[in-house]
């Protein structure tokens, strides 16, 4: 089984990197994160300058005029990590939407399902390849967090969070445009349900708050890995894989 999954994964990987879309997505992501990281860095330097300015009461190491909460973690890393998560949501569907939809559009899905590969092997291989792509994307843009990544668990929660709904959505339709819309919609709607809080009762708002991605994300950029948050993202990723599998099985049944 592992051999079949690996063979399919290799084929998917070759296909992905033979098309320019992977590079365009990588370029967009790295450029966006680079510019925003630089902006946070400049703002931090300006903030330090203001705090250490002689005109504001005299600065200097021994006077402790820079409060301890003004540091690279709070002023550069955490806001940059928040931005990076959103950027992944923006650029990734361009790649993930084609994973299943392209097979349907080109009619190779039937070939795939009758090739002796079981549906869960297909879903597993395609998920693995797209996760690997995100790993490569993060690695390409990881120069700046590399300084702090040993202190803060940046990144892997993105890998999981960003796949919410994207693969299963693209497996439900043969239209790449619809797949893209679904790929964008589900994670963005799941991102935060605060917009609904005025329209629903308090218990419902609380339950929605538990589901929303945003509330589960905050501890990772701060350098804390909480078991319950890891389980949350793992559950979402598992559900995504399960939905892809179900879609493939239903397609086979029809």
């Amino acid at each position: 089984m592992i051999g079949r999954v690996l063979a399919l994964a290799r084929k998917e990987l070759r296909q992905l990197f033979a098309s320019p879309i992977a590079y365009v997505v990588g370029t967009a992501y790295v450029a966006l994160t680079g510019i925003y990281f630089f902006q946070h860095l400049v703002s931090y330097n300006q903030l330090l300058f203001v705090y250490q300015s002689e005109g504001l009461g005299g600065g200097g190491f021994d006077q402790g005029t820079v409060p301890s909460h003004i540091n690279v973690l709070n002023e550069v890393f955490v806001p940059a990590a928040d931005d990076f998560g959103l950027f992944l949501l923006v650029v990734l569907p361009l790649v993930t939407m084609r994973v299943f939809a392209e097979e349907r559009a080109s009619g190779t899905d039937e070939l795939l399902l009758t090739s002796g590969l079981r549906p869960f092997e297909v879903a597993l291989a395609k998920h693995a390849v797209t996760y690997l792509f995100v790993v490569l994307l993060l690695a390409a843009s990881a120069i700046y967090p590399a300084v702090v990544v040993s202190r803060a668990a940046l990144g892997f929660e993105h890998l999981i969070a960003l796949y919410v709904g994207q693969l299963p959505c693209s497996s439900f339709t043969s239209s790449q445009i619809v797949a893209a819309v679904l790929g964008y919609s589900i994670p963005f709607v799941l991102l935060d349900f605060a917009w609904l809080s005025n329209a629903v009762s308090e218990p419902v708002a609380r339950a929605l708050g538990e589901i929303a991605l945003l509330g589960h994300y905050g501890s990772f950029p701060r350098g804390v890995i909480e078991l319950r948050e890891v389980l949350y993202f793992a559950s979402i990723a598992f559900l995504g894989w399960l939905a892809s599998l179900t879609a493939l099985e239903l397609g086979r049944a029809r």
Partner: protein
Amino acid sequence: MSLLPAAGLVMILVGVASHYATRSLQGFSAFPAANVALGIALVLVGAAARARAFRGFSGAASRRVALRALAIFAAGAIAAIGLGVASRSWTARLDLTVDRLYTLSDQTRSLCAELDRSGAVAIELVFFEDALLAKDARLLVAAYGAACPRVSIRDASRSEPPAGARALYTTTATTVIACRGGVCDPVGYPSERNITAALLRLSSERSPRVFFLIGHGEVDLASESDGGYSGLAALLRDQGFDVRALVGPAAAEGPAGADVLIAAAPERDLLPEEIALLDRWLESGGRMLVLAEPGLRSNLYSDLLLRWGFDLEDGVIVDAAASPLLENPSPLNLLVHLFAPYHPVSRTLSRRTMVLMPTTRPVALARKPQPDDRLERIAFATERARVDHDLTRALAGRSPARSDAAIGEPAVAAAGSYPRGGTGAAGEASAAEARIVVIGDRDFASNRLIGALYNRDLLLNAARWLASDESRIALTDKAWTPNQDPLTLQQTVAYFYFLAFALPEALLLLGIYAWWRQRA
């Protein structure tokens, strides 16, 4: 028909986005609401159309496959949701921050255990989710909830906070308020130090009394100038001490009511009867913190302290190893980083937690008053330090390099404990032991320097030890100091060129190559 749900999802997205863009202006208005409602309707219509167009499965085997797939999905979904719900109460976490910012220190854990043992009324930490610093504080507050059985967390956005907390909530800068039995106490900046200090204040049945000796040229307790001690007084009050001024120990109230007496560098002699009274008070188990300074000649040092085993020779410590990190790297400005590792006053301090002391008087040990007494040097300058007895020459920065013999790690602070037969003010057995801490500098506790490095910790540790409150020795202030160092302009620009231009450029060129190969 599949475009209908797509259009619906776009409308939902626009509705949500427009709500976020305008919520500060008008709340949930008609435009976002209409978009969301219409979007949901389109999605439902599209789904219904797809369902109607469904022609069914081709046979019993297909139906079985479909049912099995759906059953597996339902079971998986239920398992995932169940796991998510169950894990809400799991608190296991891995704190990977450099200083373990979100892991409670031993002191806080010890306080929590003490609260649990005493069966005291539970303390509630009211957490304001909308506060400006809520993101910073959430993990820390959760750590208290997990580690302290007698401390509960109340999220003010989910359940109504107690009236006392509501009254203290002033601005969005209020993040955490601690309450116990209807009495509430604002925490201030939501750090572990401040939250634990609030727990201390609320849990203390009786505040230790700290008297400051005045009337002999001591540092002014109320002065807010750089050299004043208003910051020290505020710090002690914040830590639950009852701080008062004592106009000479011979005054009517005397030092008898004090748990700790602080003599902050008296510049003049005390009256002989005052010295005698202090001596008797110490014999009965009194506790005293003396801050000295080079050049001061009071009989408190030469008579009283000498009798209790401390020899404050007149001179100033000159240490060539003074850190170049200081703005003024004078050899008189000591970065003290050598501490006695097992003494309660100094055990939380180390090479990483330095104390800044400008112009420090050496504190040497003399003969012990009684054989059972214990005298210990607790903080030292480096082995390159020496004592210059010509204060004028030293202050002028003209100390010759080898004018006095190096004496090797001269002490800047020492502590003594003296088991005596009497009973202390509070009547506890432990209070029968007299205790004295002598520190050779007064400026390190001034308003200018009390917040510098770990000066505060040395002072609070001394006050807590003197008040027989070792279990609440000051928390080490956790701050990610290395990351306050700014990047240079050159480094920042280098980052920018590489990240925003060179790396994307390389990826784009690879993309063009892939496109060219695909065409070819």
